[in-house]
């Protein structure tokens, strides 16, 4: 399928916060959330549209690889966006955010867009972390914030798409070097040609603006 850009995301956060469920929720609408079924996936891809452009999101869950330093390092570096997830019903997952963030900032490229996600917002009765706390943390560290529920699919769509919008804006601003795939951004097949010429005068011009 043709796309203008491909953005690579990673999902990070403690185990059991619902990363892979979020991923499946977003990438595959056919799996309806059901209360007695917990189901997730480690990789997913989906097409979205931003500003009239087809953008493919490719999301890689990093679960289970924490023990290898080389792996986490490389994952961070190869992504344009990261969803940092905690569980609003488990305080400790929130407390670990600083470590996750430090790690991410240490290894990622400085332009990576990070979205903070408080998951399991459907479990209001068991809530341990106030929404305000999440907001404050996000503000303090310059992240976008959202509470989601993989169970009810609430805000899941928005979380992924808002992150993509942010990345897209950065591309428009010329912050991301789109010709460098190491940033986690890839130009779509049919765009590659037009962008080769654009690469030269990129800067003031909106890259890719008039090419399709």
């Amino acid at each position: 399928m043709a796309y203008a850009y491909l953005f690579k995301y990673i999902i990070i956060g403690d185990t059991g916060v619902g990363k892979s469920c979020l991923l499946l929720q977003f990438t595959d609408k056919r799996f309806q959330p059901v209360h007695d079924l917990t189901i997730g996936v480690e990789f997913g891809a989906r097409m979205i549209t931003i500003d009239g452009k087809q953008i493919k999101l490719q999301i890689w869950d990093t679960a289970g690889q924490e023990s290898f330093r080389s792996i986490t390092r490389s994952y961070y570096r190869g992504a344009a966006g990261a969803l940092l997830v905690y569980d609003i019903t488990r305080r400790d997952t929130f407390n670990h955010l600083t470590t996750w963030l430090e790690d991410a900032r240490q290894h990622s490229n400085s332009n990576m867009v990070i979205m903070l996600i408080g998951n399991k917002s459907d479990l209001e009765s068991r809530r341990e972390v106030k929404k305000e706390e999440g907001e404050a943390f996000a503000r303090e560290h310059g992240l976008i914030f959202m509470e989601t529920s993989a169970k009810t699919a609430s805000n899941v769509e928005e979380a992924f798409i808002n992150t993509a919008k942010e990345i897209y804006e950065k591309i428009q601003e010329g912050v991301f070097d789109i010709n460098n795939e190491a940033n986690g951004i890839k130009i779509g097949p049919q765009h590659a040609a037009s962008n080769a010429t654009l690469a030269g005068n990129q800067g003031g011009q909106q890259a890719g603006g008039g090419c399709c």
Partner: protein
Amino acid sequence: MFGRSRSWVGGGHGKAARSIHSLDHLKYMYHVLTKNTTVTDHNRNLLVETIRSITEILIWGDQNDSSVFDFFLEKNMFVFFLNILRQKSGRYVCVQLLQTLNILFENISHETSLYYLLSNNYVNSIIVHKFDFSDEEIMAYYISFLKTLSLKLNNHTVHFFYNEHTNDFALYTEAIKFFNHPESMVRIAVRTITLNVYKVDNQPMLHYIRDKTAVPYFSNLVWFIGSHVIELDNCVQTDEEHRNRGKLSDLVAEHLDHLHYLNDILIINCEFLNDVLTDHLLNRLFLPLYVYSLVNQDKGGERPKISLQVSLYLLSQVFLIIHYAPLVNSLAEVILNGDLSVFSSKVEQDIQRSSAKPSIRCFIKPTETLERSLEINKHKGKKRLQKRPNYKNVGEEEEEERGLEDTQEDADKVKGTEGSSKGIKASGENEEIEMVIMERCKMSELSISTVTEQNTTDEEKSAAASGSEMTNWSRPFLDMVYNAQDCAEDDYYALFVLCLLYAMSQNKGIDPDNLERIQLPAQHAEEKSSYNHVLAERLIRIMNYAAQPDGKVRLATLELGCLLLKQLVLSKSGSIIKDVHLACLEGAREESVHLLRHFYKGEEIFLDMFEDEYRSMTNKPMNVEYLMMDASILLPPTGTPLTGIDFVKRLPCGDVERTRRAIRVFFMLRSLSLHLRDEPETQLPLTREEDLIKTDDVLDLNNSDLIACTVITKDGGQVQRFLAVDIYQMSLVEPDVARLGWGVVKFAGLLQDMQVTGVEDDSRALNIIIHKPASSPHSKPFPILQATFIFSDHIRCIIAKQRLAKGRIQARRMKMQRIAALLDLPVQPSTEVMGFGHSSASASQHLPFRFYDQSRRGSCDPTVQRSVFASVDKVPGFAVAQCINQPNPSPLSSPSPSSSGSGSTGHCDSVTASSTSTPSAAHSPSVDDSSAPEQPPMTFSSQVMLVDETSSAASKSVKNPVKNPEVETANLSPSLIPAQQPTISLISDDNTDALSVESLTLVPPIDPHSIHTFSCIPQSSLPSEVCGVTEGEGSDQSQQADYDEQ
């Protein structure tokens, strides 16, 4: 269970009679599959949805109802998947199948369910299926599927994937074929899979990995890494104007990724895999490419080479990241002790135990692709096993290995005594797999040198360490390492060499004895009595260069040099540095003091910079690993901050940075010198936390000046307090109930960081802000106090204002004097702020007590244009006079006869003059005099005096008659003598030697007319001063006392 589930779904779906999640539904799905065994355009959608639903039901079953799984297995439904797959049914179906498999294996929670799924060989059939890998989505799903499977590997499940009898391990062999896939996420997944495999402690499987796959995989991997390195080197060599930095930093990050990956393999500590890997890394990459390039820069030749800086940089990374002893020891051995013979097969008298072929360490492309090698190995499998029974029998092997281990330890102990006879085999042809299995005991004896170092004396060792005395013993790599430390031109290479030495000394894997040969002690070395003189001298030379005004040594280099020198000469019992070296070092330190004196200014900002540099230096000591992650140091050192390169990793740009650099050099060398002389630091930091008044301290305030006030904080809080001003701090106290005349401190803040402004419509009120100095460059300055103080009447208010102002000046001046003392400058004896008397009342009418440089604080008054060094002290009568190397200052020390009475005292030559608020004086000057940096400095101060009162001119002339004519001219017709003016430009100061003009800012009012005369001066005066004047709201005065240091 069913009932519940059905009713739940039924509620949601109304009519739907059958629950989606149920055994019944799975049965129905089975029925659909049996009816649609052939994929056609018509049933494609139906099939995809069916497969998807089956996934969902299976997971549901795993979590809720195990009978679902039983049915799935009983009907062998996996076969349908495989059948569909084999029909080349197209992307749509393929992706769905792969997603299903991913979900299936990821979500299965019961071990038994997992075993069921794996029990027939279907999964392996799917793994080896030839998907269309050109499709990036299929590729991504496929590799994720393998990754998911690899995460399920353990000692039990491994048997479902690795078949001992057929020598099949599809999961692993299929995965590694993608090790160099262009898509980074795929490569990462491959690495994850391999690591997950190596982690499983299953001997037969690991033996298979080593015997059948290790050589092809590792040789290709090493080639892949090497190719990246060549590309990286190209990038460095073809760089113009730092344009390649983006690409370069990617390539560097890629190399780091590889090293971390290799290290992750090595620390799994699977010995015999490590042997193969070590062999390849050493003999196919590190030695022939990295180390070889250390000495063969000029010669042409066939062998691939990289530039010296890249080679040093990469080797540092290797030693910083990899700590696996056999590898790092061998590598260090060659660098420190080896010679070129390690690269020629002739000299090497290796007895090739397992191969008759000569081994040449060479960076060459593997003769065939990884895929092909794997293919060949697979077919050769059985036969070879028979040929080489050693690797067949697990138990035997283990025993043998233990034996080898012991041997190696012994070998290590006597290392060096029998060094020449053994060496490492380089691998033979790729298909000759067994040949390359390394003899572990040879690992540490790479060296060809036969020097026995067992019974040498320290002196001999020292000579050996220097490498110069020994005939017939060339150590080209070590020589190069020493030589590259030369910083006369620049420190491009020196930085890398220091990093390399540092990394080696910190490496936990390197045998301390190895380092001892060049007397480079490991970090926590034992008692020692000698050290490497050559190295020490080189290091001290770097320090000497760094302290030169035009030294091209970056701060990072200097800091690293200090670190290394400390490590070199400090032993447990203290410093063992030789007097002569210490003397040289003291010389360097002395130089740094001289250097800093040139920059010592009376201006506020100097103090702030001084303290700020100290803070940032102590808060953020250098992290060499981070330093070596920065690709920007690979490009030639540059000065401009426009590159975005950190200050410490480049040369200074402009005078502000030159000042910062001088300050840092001073700090580092001072600290080093104190350290080596084993003396404690008593002077720095200027403000020690423990000396300060803290909240809740109880003070005796009898006989102290206290002013009652109401403090209204920003958030509206209101409290009654007494304001007390101490030497360095202001504090707000409340009476101590226990003792009369004592007070409890409720707030204390540094006067030097205080900002006081009047309140426009309330003459009884003051706004006071105290900022805490930023702890890191990223954090915003954070006010620890921001409040309005209301006093009982305007008199008290003015008193308070004056007291704070005076206190602030005093505090800063005292600190400046302490800096002066540190720099061995004569200290001003006067501790009191003079001339505060008359002028202050009038001044305060005009002057908002703006203590802070506005531009620095980020306030944006567009009319304010000043250099960074602008005078910011608007308090009348404040002068910081300086005498530098002035042998006889006394005759001139009479108080300046300023007419306005704001007689600040200038000692020596530095004099305070007064000027009034005529703005013209302020505006005439400009920065343009920066064009004449080399003009002879003159005693500027005398001129200034003249403007004021003739008497002062007279007094000046006593001291400096030579200048008199000039001075007179200046007085009469100043515009005639612009060329004579001293150039004190902070901006243009190219040659800090020639111009060491100390600026002095002081601002008592003077007669308006005198300003006219004065106005010539700005033509050439300090931009800083000038700008300072510009800033004033018509009441600014400026005064300048400058003079040359000679």
